[in-house]
């Protein structure tokens, strides 16, 4: 009896099943690849994600300036150091405005608050505001908006200082 199970017919039936399964898997794979998020088309800006923010003297210590084109904030801390932060709230991606009267970023969506260093001052935000890389060349600030750096809390080594002259 055991032998009769392995007939040519049962083999072909299994083959059909396997081939059908393979074909199905292929279709699923093709569908997923088709729907995979694509890289945005290269725009002139995309090639050069570095934004020149301006000379260091333009920014008073203890102030925050918004850069609409690069979608970031440039904060100059009281001690003269710079931080470039994404304007997106780390909670649910709302655009966080800088409220200078309160000296805080206050999110309108779920009332998360961040201090000038991007550190969470009031939940529900789970992380400090994301960072962009800042470079100071010849006393001119440049912010690379190409790459976002996530951080959980503020740390001193995130700040970029201008060279003492």
């Amino acid at each position, binding site marked *: 009896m055991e032998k009769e199970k392995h007939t040519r017919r049962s083999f072909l039936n299994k083959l059909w099943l396997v081939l059908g399964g393979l074909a199905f898997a292929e279709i699923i794979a093709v569908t997923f690849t088709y*729907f*995979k*998020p*694509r890289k*945005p088309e290269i725009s002139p800006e995309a090639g050069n994600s570095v934004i020149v923010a301006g000379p260091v003297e333009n920014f008073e210590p203890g102030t925050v300036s918004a850069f*609409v084109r690069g*979608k970031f904030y440039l904060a100059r801390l009281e001690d003269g150091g710079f931080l470039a932060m994404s*304007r997106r709230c780390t*909670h*649910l*991606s*709302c*655009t*966080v*405005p800088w409220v200078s009267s309160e000296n805080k970023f*206050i*999110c*309108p*969506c*779920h*009332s998360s608050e961040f201090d000038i260093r991007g550190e*969470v*001052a*009031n*939940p*529900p*935000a*789970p*992380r*400090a505001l994301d960072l962009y890389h800042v470079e100071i060349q010849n006393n001119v600030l440049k912010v690379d908006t190409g790459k976002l750096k996530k951080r*959980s*809390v503020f740390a001193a080594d995130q700040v970029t200082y201008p060279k003492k002259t």
Partner: protein
Amino acid sequence: MSIFQRIHLSVFPGKRNTKHGNSERPKIFRSFLLHFRPSAIPEKTLRLSLTWGLGSIAAVLVFLLFSTGLMLKFAYEASPDGAYNSIVYLINQIPFGRLLRNIHRWSANGLIFVVFLHFLRVFYTSAFTAPRQFNWVIGLCLFCAVIFSNFTGYLLPWDQLAYWAITISTSMLDYIPAVGTGLKEWILGGTEPGPRTLMNFYAIHTAILPALLLFFIPFHFWRIRKAKGLVIPRSPGEEPETEEKMADAMPHLITRDVALALIVIATILIIAMFFNAPLADQANPGLSPNPTKAPWYFMGIQEMLMHFHPVFALLVIPVLIVVGLLLIPYFNYEANTAGIWFCSVKGRKLSLISAVVAVVLTVAAVLLDEFFISANMDGPANLINNGLLPFGLALAICIGFFLLMKKGFAATNNETIQAIFTLLITAFVVLTIIGIWFRGPGMQLMWAT
């Protein structure tokens, strides 16, 4: 036979009117019209106090949505630059364009509301028990399809309201471990809402979800037929009858359906004439309006986000709720309560107690968190303080309540599950109400906005 008669006969085959009478006519008519309706139904299920016509109202609203949606498709342009202007043009230039959009909008909102009530009705009359168990599951699928239809439709006008509601709703997915961010970027077609998001949402809204609805709605109806009609209403203590008195669907059911449909259409028309569907300024990714709120049917979840860590508000709690809902028909029930409102006389009392307890506890918890706990807490939200602790507390309340029902009130499984369901649903409704009406600028609690 004249050519007209021959054509008529080809459309309606079967016996033609003869001297012997036109007895075949109604049957032909029935076979056409009653694909979804049986020709006879148990007389008691006609009672308004059983169904409140909610399923039929939902079907009428879906019909309105399909017909107005098809027409809107001709006026709409699915691109960030064109979408908003095409809506403005539709409203201001196209004859009846504004009315059409209003009908679509209010039918969609009405549908969520009606479907939710329908879901409550089915639950509280124990209409999910055998042989209707799987129809409960189909119903939940339809509920999801309706929510997602509303959600995807919300983005299409590409105004501030739409843009930010979609931004925060999709960002919620980021908090699902491992797959969340990928899923978000898949839906958005990028990292933030853009042209591809609009195309995705448009395709889902106008093709995929309607197709799903067209599949699931007839399936839902067909299962009612398979179960020999709706659940038969009875009073507590009344035994189910072995032989039900039947009534002809024509005219008893059909006339009711038609009357109800006319009332629904008239109501929607009146609302659509006097209340315009909202349209804010064109979407501006640089400016979140204050306050930014999710669509109203997501306000319960948004309110939960104010109090729970997102992993709990968006993943743990919703998954538990969905699994619980799917399992409702498959729990072990001691008594057959099908058709009895709230299971029993005791069930009514316990449901009322649960609802009152839920209102008091939810309001108290929100106020406590707002003014004492969150106010005294600095630093980022973390899984323990904002997640595990409040979640554990909520879970403990549910378990305590379960034990109270079981031990304190000696309730049956039917009544206990009903009490827990009532507790959770009421809490969710209260959260939704707080979110919609009691959250002002900066999402601060305030008296009625």
